[in-house]
């Protein structure tokens, strides 16, 4: 191993307070099994349906620190694994978030994995199969993952671009959990709790969500996500008039198309 100094990697913290998460199906039990069995997990689902929140909750539940990396198309291997920095006259090695997570036995969450460049994605391959090792090429080091370490990636299959599809060799390393918007009564509970509105308002917001989801593929790429409904709820809780809140937080957030905007306004007006 090289004799350069090891910079103090940012200390990984446990999640203190229990994040609010409303289980939808059996995903909590499945995730726990996967963790016990040291299997990596792929979360699939439309935007804003609670994937990130779920991982935060599981990290808390399993009492593991959580390292989240939002992937983008300039993300290099070094950004994940680590690099040398020059400090004063010395070169100092700094672990990237993935390496730090492996060393600490944390949960590493790579959000929107398809956004990452294909060559970057490959570094997780040996980590995501039976070997469970991370190669830190620059240091000539192989870091073996402790049992507690877990790799979680997320992916939104609704993407339309042919350039953004997850490779089978990546995808087939993961246990896949399907996420979708929960059924109306459950979703209303989430909106009420998160957005701090009364049950009736939450119910109507979820109804609006449902109406917009009926338009998926018929003018909208996606219907309103739980996240958007929570946003609208927040505005309402803050005193904004409900129809105005929905127009701003839901209708305008979904489309720029003037025809479609008219229809969404009609739907907002139908519910409130």
């Amino acid at each position, binding site marked *: 191993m090289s004799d350069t100094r090891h910079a103090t990697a940012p200390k990984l913290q446990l999640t203190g307070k229990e994040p609010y998460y409303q289980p939808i199906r059996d995903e909590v039990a499945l995730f726990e099994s996967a963790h016990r069995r040291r299997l990596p997990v792929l979360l699939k689902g439309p935007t804003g349906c609670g994937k990130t929140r779920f991982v935060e909750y599981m990290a808390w539940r399993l009492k593991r620190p959580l390292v989240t990396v939002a992937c983008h198309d300039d993300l290099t291997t070094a950004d994940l694994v680590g690099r*040398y920095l020059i400090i004063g006259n010395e070169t100092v090695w700094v672990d990237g978030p993935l390496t730090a997570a492996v060393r600490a036995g944390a949960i590493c969450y790579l959000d929107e994995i398809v956004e990452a460049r294909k060559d970057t994605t490959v570094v997780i391959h040996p980590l995501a199969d039976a070997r469970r090792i991370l190669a830190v090429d620059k240091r000539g080091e192989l870091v073996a993952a402790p049992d507690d370490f877990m790799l979680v990636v997320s992916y939104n299959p609704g993407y339309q671009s042919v350039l953004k599809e997850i490779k089978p060799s990546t995808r087939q390393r993961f246990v896949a959990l399907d996420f979708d918007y929960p059924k*109306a009564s459950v979703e209303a509970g989430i909106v009420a709790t998160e957005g701090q509105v009364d049950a009736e308002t939450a119910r*109507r917001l979820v109804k609006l969500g449902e109406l917009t989801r009926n338009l998926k593929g*018929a003018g909208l790429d996606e219907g309103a996500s739980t996240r958007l409904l929570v946003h609208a709820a927040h505005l309402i809780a803050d005193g904004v008039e409900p129809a105005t809140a929905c127009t701003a937080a839901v209708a305008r957030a979904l489309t720029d198309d003037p025809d479609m905007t008219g229809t969404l306004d009609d739907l907002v007006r*139908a519910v*409130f």
Partner: protein
Amino acid sequence: MSRKLFSDALEQRLDEVLFASPSHRSAKKLADGLEQLDRAQQERVLHWVGVAAQSYAEIGYLVASLAPKALERLDAAGFEAWVLAGLDAYDRHGGQAAMALLRDLDGFCAGRDHADATARLDESEARLGRFLQGLSGRPLALSAGAFAHTDSETVFLPAQLAALPSAADNRRLYKAMAALLWAQTRYGTFGSTAVDIGAALSRWEDRERALRWFAALEAIRLEAVIGAELPGLSAEIAALRGPWPEALREAVGRLGRHDAAVSHSLTFLAECMAGEQEPPQLPHAGAIDLDAVLSVRAARIARDSETVRRALSTLKGFGGRQPSGEQTLAVNTEGGKVEFTLDGEVAALPPEAQAAAQSLLQDLGELPPECLVPAGPGAWQPTHREGSEGSVADALTRHREPHRRYDEWDYRRRAYRRGWCHLFEVNLAPGDADYVAKVSLRNTALINQIRRRFEMLRGEDRLLGRQPEGEEVDIDALVDAAGDRASGAEPSARLFCRRIRNERSLAAMFMVDMSGSTKGWVNDAERESLVMLCEAVEALGDRYAIYGFSGWTRTRCDIYPVKRFDEPYDAAVRARIAAIEAKDYTRMGVAIRHLTHLLEAQPARHKLLVTLSDGRPDDFGDEYRGHYGIEDTRRALQEAHERGVRSYCVTIDRHGADYLPRLYGPARYTVLDDVKKLPLKVADIYRRLTT
């Protein structure tokens, strides 16, 4: 703007667009009339004369002769509206009506002046249609009808509404009518397993009067039921209708509740029928055409039960292929969503069966046991008789040797028919050499906009690090080199960054439906969108090809090359775009297979197949129509996917949406409800797909 055209040139152009005129009248007189117009007006007239002549040559002739007068009184939009109104009349009522409408220029202009208070269905249709789709339930089509009513699959609304003082109010009236008709189909007006509406209403001797009362009572009940989930909508309806008439006061007290059911309306109906009164007119509520509903509904229930039963029969262990002991099927309809469970485990049905189950629930209020008996093998009724299909056409085309043969998927056999389809590449005779230039002239602004947007994409540069030379120092590389030097390793000399143009490595194939059903505006829209697309893709520099397809039975599947991959976008290609026309039938599977084959040979890393069509696969003889064609097309898309070709299907068919998820299962798709949007949308979709 270019110079205006003189009579001779005009005459020649008119001859081209009016070539089909049976009257053999000289275009000379028409041309003289158009000479006084400026060039933009002349082009506009020639364009619309051409469009009109495609429906009916006489209309084209009439448009040309009336155009100078019309343009004195109408602006560009008005002129277009006038021609469109004429064509609309032709589609609905035929040539005489169209000619009368076009000749009545005074009437048209007067109508346009007063138009500010009238709402027209064709203007509100798209928005209303999407509104109904948003409200959900079974998809409902929207159409103009003599009076407002629904047969439970189509909502009919009057073509114009002028009952209220302003156009905005009249548009709201449309929405209220549509919503109440939707509610009839959604909240049990037409009965359920428990309530037989047909029987209930045949009790009355004066059935017409009973139906009028029933419609009024249901308007009260449904408004209240809508209010439970959509309070904003019911409030809007209430505001539009004003106070209920005195004669309905008691009914409102009894039926105006969130939880009122159709049985309550029927009970109250008996009291109304016992009296002498006629029901008051309710301008916001439609009528009920019960006979239309009942026949449509019965057919649908039969169809949906069959679909569900077939799907159930394929569930493993449940009346299916491998019965593994007794399993129990449970149906949960809580929250209005049908969910099947087999021994406690959720059983997912294919989307069309799920939709059928949902539709049954809507029609019957439950899923009756007889719909849950899996269809035995006997229920599969292969209707096909070998060799019976299109024998006349077979004989006509037998002498040609196909360029290739393709397999076709027979879903009934669950096997391919080997070498079943005979594929011919047929050259298109060049069309109007100026077509593309003319379209470009009419759409200059749009094309500039598209070109700008796409050029922006192309300009996306990337910074390449760790190069031996380049315009900037790569700090990361420099630091690494310092690190290496410090640790005694040999430092790299690649210390620079270089900007490079992003290599897109993409090959796109556009497959254009040239079947007979595209005749008219759809074909025009297809051609125009190709003009936009070529502009867009040229700006990007991607490799692309365009092929048309049509055919007549399996032994004559024609593919028309418009632009091959290695051809530049030149005059020959432009002339071929102009030559794209509606021909015969739509055997889609073989076209997809052939074009996939061509795409596969491309060296690009990403391969994209974009189909433009107007809906269902269809071919001569009844074989490729319906299920068979859908399954084969689906299969072909799946094969393409397996070969690394990504498909995207653009369909112009608002009412076909129910089978599309099945058809395009392996592909992505979008449905346009309005052909006019095609050119814009296609360029947009392409951009979204490839960035």
